[in-house]
């Protein structure tokens, strides 16, 4: 399977769901989608094209929106599904019904960006400490961190 056949198949199967499709480097295909079409695209990738390995989900803070990149791989190539959700209403459908292992990445997205993943089977916090104050999302660009003052035991000499 080379890149061009995969691009053609994506255009044929997903049709007008594909907003944009680029092939910036060999064996790397970016497919841009609306967030409502995400589940259909993941279903197509997994069940028809055999992309069973979701490497990770990347979240990017673009200012007005969050971009999410789903990195899929099979033994031939990588396909990255890119989608954007608005920052003031960050709702994302869970893909755990198709790929159960995605729950870890989705929980991390909830922790680090404050994205609300709908229909997530297990929405507990994952990476942040237990006593983390609510409403603080470290990977948002506008999040500021004030380091608590350190005490030197015994004082400075």
């Amino acid at each position: 399977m080379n890149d061009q056949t995969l691009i053609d198949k994506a255009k044929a199967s997903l049709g007008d769901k594909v907003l944009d499709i680029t092939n910036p480097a060999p064996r790397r295909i970016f497919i841009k989608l609306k967030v409502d079409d995400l589940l259909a695209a993941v279903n197509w990738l997994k069940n028809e094209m055999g992309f069973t390995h979701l490497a990770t989900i990347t979240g990017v803070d673009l200012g007005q929106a969050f971009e999410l990149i789903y990195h899929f791989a099979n033994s031939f190539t990588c396909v990255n599904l890119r989608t954007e959700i608005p920052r003031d209403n960050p709702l994302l459908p869970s893909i755990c019904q198709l790929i159960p292992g995605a729950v870890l990445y989705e929980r991390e997205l909830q922790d680090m960006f404050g994205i609300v993943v709908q229909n997530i089977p297990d929405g507990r916090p994952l990476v942040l400490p237990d006593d983390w104050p609510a409403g603080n999302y470290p990977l948002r660009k506008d999040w500021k961190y004030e380091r608590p003052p350190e005490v030197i035991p015994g004082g400075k000499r």
Partner: protein
Amino acid sequence: MLTKLTQWSRLKSPWILHLNTGACNACDIEVVAALTPRFDVERFGILLKATPRHADVIVCTGPATRQMKDRLIRIYEQTPDPKFVIAVGACAMSGCVYRGAYNVIGGIDQVIPVDVYVPGCPVRPDAVIDGVVKLLNKLKG
């Protein structure tokens, strides 16, 4: 007489607990290397223990992370008195490269009292042994 005996036994067999509070594992490997027959710390009576309840000395590697803070205090409180803490590595001393990260408080000394600091990134096994021996000399004097 009895105090002399306890002092002698304390100096001759400091049992240690190896504790990682969020290190990158380089210091842990060096601490484990210090326990191998090549360095032979058992000639000082140093023995690695699996639980804080059996330990006299906590050999602590890594910066104090926010998640580990309460657990670190709990481990410290589980250790029977008299207890001593050795901060092994630059991270345990000050936080090193993790200093200022949102999930790191700083060195171990921000959470529990520390007796001996062993610098290095990672430390050499000789330095760990030197730190323990320095602690024992401190107790002797």
